[in-house]
């Protein structure tokens, strides 16, 4: 069923773990919840770029846009 959880082991470098812990603390999320959000975001980006859209960063103050490359 949709709510059943499955467990996996994640192998991360020290730098990745530091980044994960830092982001989790900043967003006040558990590491699991943080990775869940990252996965959702990645899936959204994948869907929209598959449809031909582009992901952009926009800086209102500097009036510029930059495309984010997504593999």
């Amino acid at each position, binding site marked *: 069923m*949709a*709510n059943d959880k499955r467990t996996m082991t994640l192998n991360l470098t020290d730098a990745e773990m530091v980044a994960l812990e830092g982001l989790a603390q*900043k*967003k*006040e*999320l*558990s590491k699991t*919840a943080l990775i*869940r*959000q990252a*996965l*959702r*975001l990645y*899936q*959204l980006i994948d*869907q929209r770029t598959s449809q031909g859209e582009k992901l952009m960063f926009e800086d209102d103050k500097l009036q510029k846009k930059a495309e984010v490359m997504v593999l």
Partner: protein
Amino acid sequence: MSARPIELIRKATRDFVPGILHSELRVQELVLVERRWAVERARVMAALLGAGVPRPQWPESLHWDWSSKASELQLLMASGFGVWCDEDWQGVMLTKTVGYSAALGQDEGKPVVYVDFVESAPWNWTIRAIEQEPRFKGIGSLLIREAIEQSLKEEFHGRVGLHALPQAESFYGKVCGMTMVKADQDKQGLVYFEFTRQQAEQFRSAGGKR
């Protein structure tokens, strides 16, 4: 689909009526809801025209057809909720957990549950111009409470954000007790409202502002 029993209030009798709150609504269900409600919207539209009500006074969502976006429900970030009662869908809500961050206080930048869409069935609208009374009351409150529950489950501590239509600003601001953050030019000037974690707890326990 997950489901839990809830109660709604039948307006005519003020009785509590058993219903079911479904979460994890699928695309198929949403499309069915939209088709069912489209017929009722046409009836309301015809009644408003017949009564000579000027268009600016019509319910703002009267002509919406959002089933084309229902496919987004298949994404992990999206959730669909529905209130089922009296053998019919009485209300629907779509939320997202990605793409929006809190704007208020110490939680600025942290994730929120964003309410993309919430609506009660056309027969539950109060439209004084055509003397329509709702069949069921409290649909919006139930659904917004469910958005808070989702926020808690997601570890977002109850934070919820949404852009209200002008006719709904009093509901979210005064009744629910959300903070009116700003008129958002990225959303055609709609006002962005947000529950802080404290306001969410206040809403759940005492029901927003009195």
